[in-house]
């Protein structure tokens, strides 16, 4: 069914459409294993063979990850209709460090946010009296802890890994924002940004919307996000399937495994800083590294540093921040990520 008819249907009966979709989703999720068994058997392959095992992995994981991604992205699209950046800003305005950082990092996950809006949001928050450290907690959490990363980690490595990534991402954003706030770096904002703190934001009245529109928004979010990331996911799972069937398990163990030299983790974070990719693009790499015996902490730290810190982002932020503040931002976030990696590798 095309999306156009889907939207037409929701306009008439949003709840019926939602229940139908949910029932279909559950039915599909429940038949993942039989479906994969069937495909492998239909091709006349045995699961005991390498090709059979790789293929089973692929036809099981692809629909599973796509289902999880669709479900989570849809839910996030609906949540977005409740939380606008304007509302988040009003909630954070005048908050103190501490409570403000926790709220900012949490709201960073659910506030609709496009990376091209990073600078106007940053200035808009400061202008409305949101403290610098609190603003940074928001800006760090928003790209790092996103629904695509969570859905993919959930689908490929289990909910425990997704929950750990969520929790540790929040911790890094909160602590980094707290440290930046304590350093009192307001003087390292560009002059025109400081002047801006006195201006009044434009009145923008969001139109009242009902559930039909909220469900439409969820569907539109799925179309936009899943439509963009599916090739990366296919690639990631194909890489994973190949590793599953063919590559020896401990291929990466000596460089990035738990018994790797001490510099392995800092090197992974450092390499990740200038790299730029979204969550979907990095997943094939993550899958490949883990499959070859790399340690989970090292791999997650690498993933966080690729998504949360990037050269293009620094260049955009340079318009509003002076170099010492950019350096502090990158240094503190990288240190936080490093700590996460150390804790992960030590405890798991």
């Amino acid at each position, binding site marked *: 069914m095309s999306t156009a008819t889907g939207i037409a249907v929701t306009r008439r009966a949003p709840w019926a459409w939602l229940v139908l979709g949910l029932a279909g989703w559950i039915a599909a999720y429940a038949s993942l294993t039989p479906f994969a068994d069937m495909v492998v058997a239909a091709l006349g392959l045995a699961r005991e063979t390498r090709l059979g095992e790789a293929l089973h992995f692929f036809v099981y994981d692809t629909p599973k990850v796509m289902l999880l991604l669709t479900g989570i992205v849809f839910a996030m699209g609906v949540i977005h209709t409740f939380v606008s950046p304007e509302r988040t800003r009003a909630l954070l305005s005048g908050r103190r460090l501490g409570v403000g950082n926790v709220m900012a990092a949490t709201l960073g996950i659910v506030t609709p946010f496009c990376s091209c809006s990073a600078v106007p949001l940053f200035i808009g928050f400061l202008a409305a009296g949101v403290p610098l450290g609190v603003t940074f907690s928001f800006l760090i959490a928003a790209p790092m802890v996103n629904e695509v990363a969570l859905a993919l980690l959930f689908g490929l490595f289990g909910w425990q890994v997704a929950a750990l990534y969520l929790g540790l991402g929040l911790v890094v954003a909160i602590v980094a924002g707290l440290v930046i706030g304590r350093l009192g770096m307001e003087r390292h904002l560009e002059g025109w940004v400081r002047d801006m703190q006195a201006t009044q934001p434009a009145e*923008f009245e969001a139109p009242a919307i009902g559930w039909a529109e909220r469900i439409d928004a969820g569907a539109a979010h799925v179309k936009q996000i899943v439509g963009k990331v599916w090739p990366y996911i296919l690639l990631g799972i194909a890489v994973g399937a190949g590793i599953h069937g063919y590559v020896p398990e401990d291929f990466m163990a000596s460089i990035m495994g738990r018994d790797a030299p001490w510099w392995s983790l800092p090197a992974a974070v450092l390499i990740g800083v200038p790299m730029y990719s979204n969550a979907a693009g990095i997943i094939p790499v993550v899958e490949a590294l883990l499959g070859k015996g790399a340690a989970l902490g090292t791999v997650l730290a690498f993933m966080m540093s690729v998504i949360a810190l990037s050269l293009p982002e620094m260049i955009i932020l340079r318009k509003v921040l002076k170099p010492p503040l950019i350096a502090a931002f990158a240094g503190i976030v990288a240190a936080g990520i490093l700590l996460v990696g150390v804790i992960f590798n030590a405890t798991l």
Partner: protein
Amino acid sequence: MKNVKVLGSGCANCANTLKLIEAVALAKGADIHLEKVEDMKQIMMLGVLTTPGVIIDGKLVHAGGVPARAKVESWF
């Protein structure tokens, strides 16, 4: 004549918004003066929090993402 400003730092969504408004105005035969505002300082002066934003005759009518075609049509 309507004065339309599209505010944005030049990302893909901003360009798409501009194109959409141009196409809709042309299709409806509306008389508009379309202007692109890319300077971050000016964008902030106009009080926009998320880009792309659209201002018509001094009033902010849309912010954050490409507007739906039906929404654009309602402006002209």
